[in-house]
Structures are given as C-alpha cells and as structure tokens.
C-alpha cells in the first residue's frame, strides 16, 4: 500500500496523465451529456454575481451549475494532492530554462508557480503585478473571446474534429510562444 502512494507521489509521465485527461471527455458525455470545458465557469460566476444587465450574462446560470461543481472539485483535488500526494522535490525542467530564469532572480523551483514572482509581496512589484493581474485578465478575456480554453477547444473541440477549435488551439500556442520568447524576458527584467 505504501508503495502505491509513493508511486502516486512521483511526477506522472505524459503517457499516464494524457490518456486520463482524455478520458474526461467520454466520462462527462456519458455520465451527464456534458461537453468538457472549464472557462465557462468564469462566465457563470459573472452571471451569478454581477450580471449588470449585460446581455452576455442574461441566462439561467443555475442550469450550468454542474460546471461550478466540477471547478470546485478541481480546487479540492489540489487540496487533496497537497495533503496526501505531495512530492517535495523541485520540478525537473530543462537546464537551459533554469539558467535563463536564474538570470531573472527566479531560483525557487519547488512550487507550481515561482515563489519569487507569485506572492503577495511581489504583487506590488511591476513584474508581479503584470504577470498576476494582467496575465489573469488576459486568461479570462481571451478564453471567453475565443469561446473556450485548453479544455473546451484543445481537448474537447479537437477530439470532435472541429476546425474552429484547431484554429483556436494554434492561436493559443502562437500567443504563448510570442509571450514566452519575445515579451516575457522584458517583463521579467522589470
């Protein structure tokens, strides 16, 4: 039994995690006739909390409440992993990345996000503010404008062979490449 838990604690290889994530698609379809997608939950929060007579938020969000249960589950999954399956070793990434990031003072590789940037203290610094506040805004604005995120477009949409989802996925990747390689170095230098 201990060995199973020890095994779970290790980082999971892509060929284990990918298929499990892919199985979310038929699971949600068969158990509830739901298409896999997460960013809509942000819209439901807007519709529930501050619809403000905006047409985009005038719908019966309670009918979509499964999505909020799902998202809350993801949050609980994070807590459960931290309590029982935590691996204290730092993430093993490419040595070039470690060299590049240490140049910007990012030396703590132990968390999911770099503690050197994503903290309350760094919220008041230019790079912390830009990455957390503007970055978060772009995730919300961009996914809704695109009509979905990595789950709705890249996984669900591509699984259903939807051309618009392929276009969206290519755009996600293009945006990420531009940001990580061309813009992020400037932000991290601030």
């Amino acid at each position, binding site marked *: 039994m201990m060995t199973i838990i020890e095994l779970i604690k290790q*980082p999971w*290889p*892509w060929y284990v995690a990918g*298929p499990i*994530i*892919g199985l979310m698609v*038929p699971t949600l*379809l*068969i*158990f*509830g*006739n739901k*298409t896999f*997608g*997460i*960013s809509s939950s942000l*819209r439901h929060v*807007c519709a529930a909390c*501050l619809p403000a007579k905006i*047409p*985009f938020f*005038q719908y019966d969000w309670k*009918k979509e409440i499964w999505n909020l249960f799902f*998202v*809350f589950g*993801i949050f609980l*999954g*994070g*807590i*459960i*992993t*931290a309590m029982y*399956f935590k691996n204290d070793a730092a993430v093993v*990434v490419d040595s*070039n*990345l470690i060299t590049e*990031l240490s140049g910007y003072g990012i030396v703590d590789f132990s*968390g999911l996000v*770099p503690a050197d940037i994503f*903290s309350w203290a760094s919220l008041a610094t230019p790079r912390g503010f*830009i990455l957390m506040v503007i*970055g*978060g805004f772009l*995730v*919300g*604005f961009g*996914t809704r404008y*695109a009509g979905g*995120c*990595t789950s709705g477009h*890249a996984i669900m*949409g591509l699984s259903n062979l939807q051309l*618009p989802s392929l*276009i969206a996925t290519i*755009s*996600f*990747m293009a945006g*990420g490449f*531009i*940001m990580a390689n061309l813009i992020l170095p400037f932000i991290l230098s601030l």
Partner: protein
Amino acid sequence: MTTNKKDTNTDFEVRSLDAICKNQETVETPMWHNIKYLLFGIAFGIVLIKSEVISWFRIQEMFRLQSFHMFGVIGSAVAVGALSVFLIKKFKIKSIQGEEIILPEKTFNKGQIYGGLLFGFGWAMTGACPGPMFAQLGYGAIATSVTILMAIVGTWVYGLLREKLPS
C-alpha cells in the same frame, strides 16, 4: 429523474454565438446529482498537479520547445478523446440518463484567433488556464487567487465589450 421536461432555450440566439457555453441539459436532475461532477473535478485536479501540466515552469518549457512533456500530455489526451468521441458517435452510445449524445458543431469567428492569442499571452504569463488556476490555489499557491479574480474580471469585461469587438 422524475421530470422529463424539454427545455425551451429562449436566449438561444445570444448563446449560440458563443461556441462553448450552451444550455445542454434537457433532463432536469436533482441538485445532489451534481456530486458526480465534484468527484470528476477532484480526479482531474489530482491529474493536473501530478502530471505537472499546471506548473508555471513546465509551461515555460513548452513554449520554449525545451521538453516534449506538455505536448505528449495534450497530444495523448486528444488522441484518447477523439477515439472516445468516434466510438460514441459510431455506436450511438447514449448517456446514462438515456439521452442521445449530440456534440455541438462550432462555428468559426475571428474571436478564436484574437481571443486565442490573448489567452496564449495570459497562459504563458500565469502558467495557468482556467482549470489549473483552481488546482494551483487548492495546492497552496494562495497568490493565484489574484489570477482567478482577474480572470473573472476579464470575462466580465469581455461580456461588456463583446458587441464592440471584431468577430
């Protein structure tokens, strides 16, 4: 399942413009049925963390083409998802409520490019998409609550401006 009330989707026009979010439910189910989505979410959250796909560092690696890991996860997820959808369609598998499974066709609009690029920027900045944010927070990255709050603000501002945006 006591009622089998068909839903008349009154604001279908507005909602159909949005590719992902539609009222799909045609069978009314009691609230406690949603517990199953909570359980699926928990499983998904654990996989996201243990596979490190929600690590900011892994995202940076992906966008610098320094590792195959992320591409392997997304690629194999799509392969399994596509095979599942193919089988569901081929054998006309019904949901456990006995409903026919119909997958909505998505229509192209320019938002998928503009919005997609903007989301890509945000993804590389925060190291998170909408699902992973919640897992990051649960795992203890408390400052991610700022990212989540701002993502909700971003969604709200999109709703406010959507008529004025090119689509």
